[in-house]
């Protein structure tokens, strides 16, 4: 019996070796031939060779599994023939469970230390600090539960693996224990809820501060438009029906506040100033996501939204802290919005107050000459186009 096994496995081994050799050859050949400019027929042939190689590999894996299965069966039979019991799978699996526990705990540890270090840096906004604190509190509590329960699970599996000699312990219920483990999670969750509720309420507070900067961000497929309020600190009204290729936001220039509005390519923010971003969408839902500031709010057509926050770390400062001179804060879309969803970003730059003043002074007005021309034309030809439209729709 033992010999048979040996032969079997030798055969398998040499098969593996042979396949590997052929396979690498095929793959190498394909590596050079897969140049997109190469003649179509040869690359097609190479492609099928590559596919064939992988299919063979899978088949080979199946054969190996089958062979191992046969070996196990033969081994089991031989045990039985010698009058012993067959393989004890309860023991085998029990041990595997224990091994799995140890290896997976190491894996979790590795993941936490390596990938856990790749997560976002500390929050660069005032409210974000509160969110981070909440996050770490939740992490500590839940990880405690995670480790306890997973360890119990896998240790129980090993410890109470089946045997003919024992019987299970008839233990249908215990009201005290059940109450305890209903009430304890309830208390812990209550704490988290209360804590979270107040954090949430402060983050989403709606009272208006006097000194905040109002900025409009409008999403459309597939870009963001940024509009600053200009000297008066007030943004002019928008109406989607006023859309023209030049005035893509549909700013209403009957509103005086719009005259000094400015257009920008980058979202530049002065550090430590309260910012209110007003969020619009023109076609489908988008989402303004600035993870470094712990800011996210959907941009919904027909439903203007906003988010208030205070940046606390300048871009330059963050570059130093991260030791990464290329670092930029980003704003990107985080709600599926079509084919270009994956590339809808704006750079966000947090600068000192002085730099901000300097920068904002250089931004172009939204009311360009083209728009002015357009407006005059419109006024001349169709004096009350907008108003008429309105009336028609209201009927």
């Amino acid at each position: 019996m033992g010999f048979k096994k040996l032969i079997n496995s030798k055969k398998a081994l040499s098969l593996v070796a042979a396949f590997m050799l052929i396979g690498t050859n095929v793959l190498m050949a394909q590596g050079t031939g897969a140049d997109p400019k190469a003649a179509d027929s040869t690359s097609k042939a190479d492609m099928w060779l590559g596919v064939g190689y992988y299919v063979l590999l899978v088949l080979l894996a199946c054969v190996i599994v089958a062979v191992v299965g046969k070996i196990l069966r033969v081994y089991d039979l031989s045990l039985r023939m010698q009058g012993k019991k067959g393989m004890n799978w309860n023991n085998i699996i029990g041990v595997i469970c224990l091994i799995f526990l140890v290896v997976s705990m190491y894996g979790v540890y590795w993941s936490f230390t390596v990938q856990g270090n790749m997560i976002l840096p500390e929050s660069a906004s005032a409210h974000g600090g509160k969110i981070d604190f909440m996050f770490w509190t939740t992490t500590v509590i839940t990880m405690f539960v995670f480790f306890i329960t997973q360890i119990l699970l896998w240790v129980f599996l090993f410890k109470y693996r089946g045997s003919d000699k024992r019987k299970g312990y008839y233990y249908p219920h215990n009201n005290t224990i059940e109450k305890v483990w209903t009430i304890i999670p309830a208390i812990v969750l209550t704490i988290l809820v209360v804590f979270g509720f107040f954090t949430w309420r402060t983050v989403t507070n709606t009272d208006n501060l006097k000194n905040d900067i109002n900025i409009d961000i409008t999403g459309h497929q597939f870009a963001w438009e940024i509009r600053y309020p200009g000297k008066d600190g007030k943004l002019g009204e928008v109406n989607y029906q006023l859309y023209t290729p030049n005035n893509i936001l549909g700013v209403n220039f009957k509103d005086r506040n719009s005259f000094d509005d400015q257009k920008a390519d980058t979202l530049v923010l002065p550090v430590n100033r309260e910012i209110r971003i007003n969020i619009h969408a023109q076609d489908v839902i988008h989402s303004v996501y600035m993870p470094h500031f712990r800011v996210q709010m959907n941009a919904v057509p027909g439903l203007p939204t906003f988010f208030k926050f205070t940046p606390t770390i300048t871009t330059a400062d963050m570059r130093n802290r991260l030791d990464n001179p290329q670092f930029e804060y980003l704003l990107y879309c985080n709600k599926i919005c079509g084919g270009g969803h994956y590339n809808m970003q704006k750079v966000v730059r947090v600068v000192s107050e002085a730099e901000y003043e300097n920068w904002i002074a250089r931004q172009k007005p939204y009311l360009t000459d083209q728009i002015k021309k357009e407006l005059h034309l419109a006024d001349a030809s169709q004096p009350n186009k907008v108003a008429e439209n309105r009336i028609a729709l209201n009927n």
Partner: protein
Amino acid sequence: MSTLAVHDHGVAGHDHDHEHHHHDTFITKYVFSQDHKMIAKQFLITGITMAVIAMLLSILFRIQLAYPDKNFPLLETLLGRFAPNGRLDPQFYLSLVTIHGTIMVFFVLTAGLSGTFSNLLIPLQVGARDMASPFINMLSYWFFFTASVIMLSSFFIQKGPAGGGWTIYPPLSALPKAMNGSELGMTLWLISMVCFIASSLMGGINYVSTVLNMRTKGMDLWKMPLTVWAFFLTAILGVLSFPVLVAGVVLLIFDRSFGTSFYLSDIVLNGKIMPYEGGSPILFQHLFWFLGHPEVYIVIMPAMGISSEVIAVNSRKPIFGYHAMVYSLIGITTLSFIVWGHHMFVTGMNPFLGGVFMITTLIIAVPSAVKTFNWLATLWRGNIRFTPAMLFAIGLVSFFISGGITGIFLGNAALDINLHDTYFVVAHFHLVMGSAAIFGMLAGVYHWFPKMFGRLMDEKLGYLHFWLTFICAYLVFFPMHFMGLDGVPRRYYAMTEFPAFNRWLSVNTFITWAAITAALAQIAFLYNFIHSIFFGKKTTQNPWNANTLEWTAPVEHIHGNWPGEIPTVYRWPYDYSKPGHDADFIMQTTPLSETMSSNLPHDFEDNPAGLQQYNEWAKTQRSSEEVK
């Protein structure tokens, strides 16, 4: 029992006679069958087919994420215009993600899971000859089948399948010009879902009425196995929430095809001012998640029921805290109707409302925690038999813990600001719902395979299948948490446009290979499943030494389930390893009078006559011992 039950019984009896005269043709036996066991198999096989398709779709888009810069000529050969030059088209990528999600959530884990096991087990475990309405049951399957065909047919149209994500938020899904996936493909999606919901409602109504009206003698509610409880509550949940999705979908169809503005307002698309006014996209989200959240529990509850049963049987121990298990299921059912807003914290919904949803959401974690602890307590001091079914049930517990814990983060509105729509959410729901429910389903397949096909599956292949799938699932989803915490958004076709995400590329490649390995591991299952149907070892009547009624039915399937009278039930289903009894299980059909030595006063709770008898017996027993 109600008169209805008696009436139904009569009808079933009549059918029975009928059957003897006219032999089943191929069509009535295998195609338009009205037998619940055959319908269960139809659901299972369709479900598995859909699962394999959805899995292959996921491999396609995982390849894109792992190798965003490479061309794969094979892809062009397979997909043609959807993968020009061997690279997936960005819009087609979104279609793949959408159809993958839709098929997995609805077609596999709702219809495939509930459809298979509710159909198979409800009549067999409560002791009924068939479903309340076998005809509606048959319709339910055929509506499901139609829905599947329509959903898949969208791959063969010019612009490809729906692409707005499985949540199909308008306006994206409402404006055909917004993306390829919002054209005809979306129409097909909507039609398919309407058929699907019809199927689901017909099934649900049948399950509820069968459980309520057709239980055998002695089978009161508190003697039902947890599987039946779970299927029953799931069906109620579905019947109450799916109609709301129909409403949402019908309004969306109106917006798409008849120019209404339920969800649309203030829209300029590609430079064209659209005439819609006064609608609200948020309305759709409310309607969708009013179903959508219960839906995730529709998916997990049957899996929980199956696992509870499998864990009890294979630990050779009663399930710990049977009443608590039922009450927590009821709690989850009720609460799941009032938490939907946690999917909408940052949609512009009133923040105060968000606060309220956060409170309800974290409450729902309590019954979930209780279930977990009770499973652990069931394993404690058990005599655990590692069948493949048992391993998969354990896998469910492990996944449910890992994924449930991240729910605590997401349920917290303040934390969700930064986590919403990132890979953290992807990790959360693939563990707690995706993997856990699939494992519950597989546990069910391995456990009840002998009941369905009269043969046994190969255990060793089952072990291989379990370990490979289990480990790979963790390898796939665990790293995603950290991507989410780094702000990597879901539903991105490629991360290459963001230099900051470059460092995740190696992780993405790793995840893809883990996913491919997991997919290959399913060969072990498929081979085992198909091979065992035809060549598996013949099973005995009760291969797992379980207590429940289905194992009193003969191995050979007969119409009406039991040849003679339906057995009567005398006890709860979890008398495993009861002290004083020689075997380590006592079937539900064994009267207490036959097991005097193992009875407990508790067994006679609402049976004073029995208690008195028992006390007398105990007294004589004691006195005879004294004599000795």
